[in-house]
């Protein structure tokens, strides 16, 4: 059975997200959900628009970090709020990611995530081959 998800841990001023998944692609999807759900309940977002983003990273940590930074960047720069990642294609350190979501102007948000930080940041592959990660974001 597939086992993946995320939960929020205590962190004074910021938010600490612990993420787990069976494979790296699922880990990326869960972590993205963890970040966006701090801003708005993603269930409330209508899948009215779609967007492709391309990111680079020489290892799993860089790919995750850059992906999360990118989904924040498109909120301000393209007024796009993500509902879900529907497809991820990673090849030679380049990831093409397909997102569905909507225009930010159609929603009221409960908060803002300023940035992804390197504080206690990690991506780990466990002995069983699963992935865990921790992401602290600045609110």
């Amino acid at each position, binding site marked *: 059975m597939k086992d993946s998800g995320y939960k*929020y*841990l*205590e*962190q*004074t*001023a*910021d*938010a600490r997200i612990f993420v787990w998944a069976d494979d790296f692609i699922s880990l990326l999807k869960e972590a993205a959900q963890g970040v966006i759900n701090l*801003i708005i309940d993603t269930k409330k977002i209508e899948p009215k628009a779609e967007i492709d983003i391309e990111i680079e990273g020489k290892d799993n940590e860089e790919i995750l970090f850059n992906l999360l*930074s990118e989904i*924040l*960047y498109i*909120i*301000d*720069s393209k*007024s796009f709020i993500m509902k879900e990642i529907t497809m991820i294609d990673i090849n030679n350190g380049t990831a093409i990611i397909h997102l569905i979501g909507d225009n*930010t*102007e159609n*929603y*009221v*948000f*409960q*908060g*803002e995530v*300023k*940035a*992804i*930080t*390197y*504080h206690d*940041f990690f991506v780990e592959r466990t002995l069983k081959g699963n992935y865990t990660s921790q992401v*602290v974001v*600045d*609110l």
Partner: protein
Amino acid sequence: MKQINQAEYRIEPYGDMRVPVNIFANKNLLQNMEKDKAIEQAINVSTLPGIIYASLMLPDAHQGYGFPIGGVAAFDYHDGIITPGGIGFDINCGIRLIGLNMEIDDIKKDLKMIHSEFFRQIPVGLGPKSSINLSKSDLNDILTEGARWVVKNGMGLKEDLENSEENGCMEGADSRNVSERAKDRGINQLGTLGAGNHFIELQKVEEIFDTNIASSFGIVKKNQVTISIHTGSRGLGHEVCSDYLRILQKPGKKTGLKDGNLIYAESKSLLAKEYFSAMKASANFAWANRQAITHFIRKVLGNFQIKENEIKVIYDIAHNIAKIEKHFGRKVFVHRKGATRALPAFHEDLPIQFRETGHPVLMPGSMGTSSYILVGVEGSLRKSIGSCAHGAGRLMSRKRAKQTINQNKLVNELKQKGIELKTPSLKGTLDEAPEAYKDIEEVVEICILAGLVKPVARMMPVLVIKG
């Protein structure tokens, strides 16, 4: 750790610490600091190259990323470093205080309308865009000119600039050091409040401690109306910080640093120059942002027959910034992260109007509590690298606040104190409730006891807009 007096503690250097960690706190505040990693972070800061004097923790210190929030450190200009982790993601997040020459009773009948109009005219929260359309070249000019650009374009008075730290613009900002990504994020955000702990408060003066200094700042009577704006450089500043953390991480990931957010550039390096220039550009964007919001506030109040020149900028101060200053006879990069500058009277960097008083030090409370105007005194140069605390400081994690604080109870408690709240998302504001923060009175008391500042006036909120 040893206690120095009732307001100060010190951790003498051990291991790879280069200087002590000096903590401004009483027992209670110290216990709060011990609950998270704030002290460990201040110790990490004390190990950085070129640090002078001490790694400081102000009474509102709590865990950040890299530096603690409420952390101050100075690094030698020639042999030291500059680090984005000592400034923060929201570069030049800060406070602007505006004074009106009228009492709260004079506008009592209009308060509801004023509240609604502020909320309608000023974009608040994450989604809404600015009504000011900027071209790319406008944005580049703002990054170089700061609040001056906004005033030049008819949105403010010359005096607004004179009463701002750095006159609302740090010289030497080069927009070429700011990435296109950062500009993409900022171009629609001039004059927007943002979310999180950002706010606009209409307040009344509750207490004046020093009538001479207060009146020289334009605070002349109890119940006088003031307005506080708390916001920063928005997405542009966040992106600049993220960009440079990424660039600095690249040239060899194994740095030996305990915390990746403390990654730094050596002060002589090209990267240090580029980051400092981009930081200045972001700081300028933040001053421009607060100036544009001031313009919207004046526009709204104009509809209630309050004239532009009756609305005076008292001061505008940065909370997250690095600056070149002289301390202990050395030229240094002072990093203030969640801390304000607090230069005492007769300091050579003070503009003429604040020469005999020191510039106003603005310390906001938390939605339902007092905000303070203070001024630096001699001890701030001797003990805190010319710095003071920046506010109440977070006590409860956002997660716990959201779980434990009740929406209706919060609104009722504020109402009982005579405070009206408007926010795009009440649920999103729970983590900004007064009980999620340390007691502002205690923070102010320790800053005074330690001899860093003296109080000038205290205000209470009447209308609050939370992002």
